[in-house]
Structures are given as C-alpha cells and as structure tokens.
C-alpha cells in the first residue's frame, strides 16, 4: 500500500509516494540521495544515520516514512550548509575528529543538536550528547575536543 507523504527536507517541501512503513532511512538515501545519512546498525544503536526531526535528533532506521508526514527533517547535508553546521564541520576538520569518517555525519548532527541547546557545554555534557553515536576509530577524545572548539569558535552563532 502506497501513500503520499509530505514533509520538509532541509528547508524544502517534498513529497513522496511510497509504502509509509518504509524506513525513513531508506527513503532519505534512496529516494532523496541523502547519502550523508549512513546506515551503521539498522537498530537505533550506532547513531550513524542521525537526523533532526522537528529539531530533535532521531535515527531514521527506527522511523517509518509515515511518521514523517507533515514534519520537518534536517539531514547532515542541510545542517552542514548552515553557518552553525559549517562551524561544526570545520572544527571537526581542525580538531582531528575524523578518521574513517563513517560515524562522522551522525556525530556532526549530534554536535549541532547539542550546541543548539547548550552553547557552552562541559566535557561531560558533550560526552553525554554524543553517547548514542558509536565511533570505533577515535576513542572520542578528539571529537569531544572538536566540539569544544566549535562551541568556542561559534560562540555568537550558537547563542543566536
């Protein structure tokens, strides 16, 4: 059974006719080409596919397309095109946060989501904020440092 589902994707109104029980992850990747949304575990455990749904970080591997009807979605593609998102991306690059990179788009979403809520996080706040994003390469330390760097550099951006 197909349904037409409409939502806002990275600021743009879109709609798609598809099985509303399709995983939002597959829809974003296959139908909208949002390949920055990575599939790492298929069960909401690794955070690689993290996106924002109405400003809240969620994992679209757990969300049926139908639940996105009328909602607002931001993916890493949309986020990194904003000044705040770019601030995170640049800080990740300068801070040594990136190794294999597969978890990183999800980490960028987590960092963005955290800093939007809490522009001046402690180390512990940051570690909590990214605790649902698994990384097997970095041991997280340089990701934490990079998020601190993004908070420092983007001070005015985040407090907007």
């Amino acid at each position, binding site marked *: 059974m197909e349904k037409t589902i409409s939502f806002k994707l990275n600021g743009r109104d879109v709609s798609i006719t598809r099985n509303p029980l399709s995983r939002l992850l597959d829809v974003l990747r296959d139908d909208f080409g949002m390949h920055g949304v990575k599939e790492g*575990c298929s069960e909401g455990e690794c955070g690689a596919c993290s996106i924002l749904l109405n400003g809240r970080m969620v994992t679209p591997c757990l969300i049926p397309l139908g639940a996105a009807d009328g909602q607002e979605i931001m993916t890493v593609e949309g986020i990194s095109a904003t000044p705040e998102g770019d601030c995170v991306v640049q800080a990740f690059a300068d801070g040594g946060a990136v190794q294999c990179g597969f978890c990183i788009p999800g980490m960028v979403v987590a960092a963005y989501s955290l800093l939007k809520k809490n522009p001046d996080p402690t180390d512990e706040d940051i570690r909590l904020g990214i605790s649902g994003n698994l990384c097997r390469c970095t041991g997280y330390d340089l990701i934490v440092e990079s998020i601190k760097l993004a908070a420092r550099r983007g001070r005015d951006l985040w407090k907007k």
Partner: protein
Amino acid sequence: MTTDDISKSVRRIDAVSKSNGSIKYMCDYELPDYLWARLVRSSIPRGTIREIHLPDLPEGYRFVSARDIPAGGQNQLSMIANDWRCFADGDVRYVGETIGILCGPDKTVLEDLYEKIKIDYEEAECAVTIDEGLACKGGAFVNGDNIHCRLKLEKGENVDDVFARADKVVEETVETGYQEHVYLETNAAACKKIGSKYQFLASCQCPFYIRKSVAPILGIKPEDIVVQQTTTGGAFGGKEHFPDVLCGPLLLAAYVTGRGVKIVFDREEDIEFSVKRHPSKVVFKTALDRNGDILAMDSKVYYNVGAYLASSFVVLQRGCFHVAGCYEFPSFRTEGFGVATNTFPSCAFRGFGAPQTLFAVETHMCHIAEMYGRDPLELKSKYFIKQGGVTSTNGRVVERVMIPEMLEQVLVASDYCRKAREYKPGSGRGIGISFYNHGGAFTGNGESAIIKARFRLKKYKDGHVELFCGQTEMGQGFHTILPKIAAHVLEIPREMVIFDDPNTDRVPDSGPTAASRSTMIVGYLCEKAAKLAKERYKTEDEFEIETQYEHPEGYPWDQSSFQGYAYIGYGWGVCAVEVEVDPCTGEVTTLGVWSSHDCGRLIDELIVHGQTNGGIMQGLGWASTEVLDNVKGHFKQTSISDYIIPTSMDYPKQECFYVDNPYQWGPSGAKGMGELVFNGSAAAYIDALSRAIGKRISSIPCPTERVMDLMLHGEGLDSALNAAH
C-alpha cells in the same frame, strides 16, 4: 603551506568531505544497472550438503555456486594459504560458509527468494573451542590432528634444565576471547566486466590481495582484474583478507550473469558472518628463584584459527614472537599451535596475534609478582630488554629502547607509585600498568622476499606531483600522511601532491595496508623517491621515479627456522589505567588512562594522537565489555546492541605522551604505530581491576557479571599459582 616541521598537524585531506557527508562510501554508489546479491550460507558448523532447494527463480535471478566455476578455474581463495574455499562444495566446515550467491535486480524480490532457499544437511559433530579442536571432537578434519600450523622457538639455556634446578616452577593459563572489528561501514563490494577486465569496487585494505585471491576462480591472471578501492569506513584488519570472501562469489556471479553485481552487508550479517580476532590460550610454565625472580619461561600458545588456515600461520608467528613481551628472560621457549575448529576462520585484527600473547605475559608477570607480595612494576622492571638485547628469535634489538623514559612520563602523570601503595587489594580502587611493543612491518625478510614493495612518483608540467602505491586510507590518515612526507622533502605545498584511492591498474603493488607498515615502509619509499625527485623538480617538466624496498644489510632472518631479526624496528608502549569498582554491582568505572609510546618521529601529532586514543579504547573494550560467544558454531552476539563496544561515556579522556626516537629506515624517522597502540591497554586495565577487587583475573573479556563472580569466588592475588608438574 609547506610542512617544515613534519610532526606539526595539518588538516586531514578527507576531513571536510567526511564530515558533511559528501564523500562516497561503497554503499553510496548507485550503480543502477548492477544486480543485487546475497550470499547463501551454511547454517550448520559441520556436515554434508544433501540438497539445495531453490524456489523458482524469476527471469533475471540467478543462483551461482561452485558448479558454475568454469573449466580451468579453482574453487579457492588464494590468501596466504590457499585452503579457504570460495564456495562450500559437498561439505560445510563452519556456520556462514558461502554455499552460493543469489543475485537479481530487485532487492525485495531477492530477499523473498533468499528466505525461501532451503538446504538439507547431514549434520556432524563440531569442534568450537580450542580444547574441542585439540581433542578432535567430531573427528579431526585438518592434518589428522586439527593443528593447522605450529612453530617452536628457544633461547638461552635449555628451559628443562633450568626447571630442574629452580626453587619453584609455576603454571598458569591465560585466555582471551573473540573480538569483532565493528568498523562502522559494513563490508561492501561490486564487480562488473568492463571491456576485457573485471572491475571491482570494494571497501578494503588491500586491493592487490583481492586481485590475487580471486583470479584463480576463473583461471585468469590477476592483471585481468582491476580493483578500485572505495572510501573505507574502518577496517582494523577486518578488511585485509575478508573482502576476498565477498569478491570471489561476486566475480563468479559477474562472469555467469554477464552483469554488474553488488553486495552490501547489513550489520547483522557483518557480525555473524565475518572474521574475528583469534581467541587464544597461553599456558605458561615459569621457573622462579627463592625471591620470585624469573629464571626461565616456557609457554604454549594456542590460537583458535577456525575452519581454514588462510592468514593464520602468520598471526600465530607474530603471537609467538611477542610472547616474551618487552622482556629479556635468561631462558625462554615457546611453542605455537594454530587449532582447527568449525568456526568462522579467524583473521587479521589490529595487532595481528601480538595482543593476545602480550596480554598473557603481562598478566602472568603480575600474578608472579603478587604471589610474592611484590609490585608488578618492580618485577617487570628487572627484565626490560635493551638495545642489543637478544630477542626470542635470537636476533637483537636494533634501536634504543626508551622504556625507562616512557615509564617516567606515565608514572609522573598517573601518580602510579602513590596509588599502587595506597590502594589496598580489594579496596575497590586499583591502578595497573603494562608494557608492550609491536614489531613493525612484515616479519623477518617478508618485506624483501615476499612483498617487494614498489612505489612511483610522477611530476606533471603544472608542478603537481602524484604518488602511486597500493596503500589505502581506512581512517588511519595515510592519505594525509603520504603527501605530507613528499611535500616535506620537495618543499612544496601539500596541496600540490595528489594521492588517490588506489586502482590496481594505475599503481604499483606496494604491498598490503597492514602490519603497521604503510608509513614505515611505503612512506620511506615515498621519501626516497621525493629525495631523488627534488633536484629534477625544478628543472624538468614531467618525469617519473620508481623506488623499491631494500632490506637493510646485516639483519638476517631465516624463515624456515624463525631465527634472526624478526623485526628491525619496534614500536614500544607503556600504559597505566586506574579503575574504581562498584561494591554493589561490580560495575567498573575507569578513572584514568595514561600512555606513552615510541613510534619514532611523529609524522603528524594529531593523527598519531587519534590513533592512540582509538587503539587504547579498542583494547579496553576487548578486555571488558566485548563479549562474543560462540555456541555450537554460531556467534551469539549478532548486533551492535549485544556486542558491546565503548561509547563516549565509558572511558575518561586519555593522557598521551610520546618520546622522540627517530628510526633510521623510516620517513623522517617514523615507525609503525597503528597496532602498537592497541597492544597494551587490556593488560593495564585487568591489572588495575584485579587489584581493585583483590582477585586474580586470567582471562578476558571481564564484563560486570564476571567482576561480580570474581568478587564472590575469585582467587586472592596473593594465593600461590599452581605448581607445574
């Protein structure tokens, strides 16, 4: 920007495109005209295939298996050994063994068909553990004794003679479990015949390995195959040989269907049906004098190799070469055995056999010290090997060993001495320390006799320089490191240096991206080429330079007897870990992690730092939460929610130190380091934990419930180790 100080960090070339999601991994290629594929696998650990019941396959869907291998082709994957079959044929030897590959255009239809495939087996009794393999449970299926491979090393006075006159000879068994790589990007590859050649796209470490491994299936030459590495989302050894296991069937499917064929594993498939770190068992027999000082150490090293040998003999060798740790014992002997079991073949994983024996020797040393009421550090300090010291293969340590300097850094930062004194055994707090090394590059004369790495540098008219070699970027930073080395020598901006993901038709074979050899060996070839290019760069428009590996003279190695210089350059490490244990639950909180490493001159501080953090944390996971059980041939943990790797909350921020100890034959003095940093944290963690609970711990992993079990029933630290008989 030129890079004057090679250690000063630069921005990684791939950092922005990986952060904003624009870089493409294998799963991001659309390849619309390719067929999807699914591997059909054995669901039993041992037996014979009676019949394969296929559903009616709609047009465009094919099931491809061993019987489709053309005349002149061989049903084998040519890894280091050639015993791993591309397809099970007649019998199956492990759960997950590839029986066939199902392919077709629509993924959902393919999945429906896949679920309808039924295979009848005649199941036989299987051997799963090392002990079951040794006991030939179900009957031996390899070499008549289930020993895939073995080796023996001896050094100094005959061990048995020392045992005869020792005050005490103690025995202890130390064991380690499976470890799953959990690279965040699952395995994926695609294959299509384009023109006269089969073209692969693959997430992999070693494109040349794939070519060599799968070509015999069609009876073609490796040169008839082109492998293009795609951006690889983590590997850690898990994509060293394992991609061959996907690529073999893909090649045959592409041959049979005449179409492009692609496969992307989901996570469950990737955990259930992929290679793992070898489980190990090391049985020590150690001769002690009255004070508990070590006179001789004998060990038997058993690795669970699984159903096929593949690369495991080399893993076992490295294990045995590292079982003496950072120590020089007056008398030493070890025997290694690669045990056949009906389990998924074990393969490379960061450390390649060294972490198991290093954990074992460190842990055994702690237990000897504690049995005599001595601080493990004091005992270990007596045996540190030094420059010129004789190694377990009767070679010598070529470089200066800076363990004393590194130890000092870690002692000061961790406040080890005070804490070790003040935290009483069983007090709930403990600090532990470990020492470790890692021989850089291939063992012995492997680099000169087997690999023979070649490297090419090309200068273009516009001033750009391109580097050509088979080394892959899998997260470790090599795409940044190598151009940096060239730019540093040529004194040109790094942006002028091009270095792409390797394509086997474009680059010379510089050997695998493994064994911590890329920077040390290939980086050195790059530096050499750049030095040769430097004068010509200014005067010539366009030219190419090729360099080839040359083994330094005077460091012989005999591969038949395993005697001589196993490694010319080692990385060295010291790690301290402090923990606190919840008295109600056994939960462990890690309070501090301090390390110091000698990896020669650092090529890029931030990259080395990131490698250190990640390696140490993988080791901590291996020691604690990463439980992977194999029950009747099936891995019990099959998802990321039950195979537990560390999150950002599990360990505190690490303090990392380095010593500057330039290596004569490395680029700017760099040595290998990617594996070294994994090798020691498990032992330090277990040392700390065992002191905190006052109980001896002789195996890993040690998750919360085991800590509780030890608190209730474990043996005290000061209890005597068993006397050997």
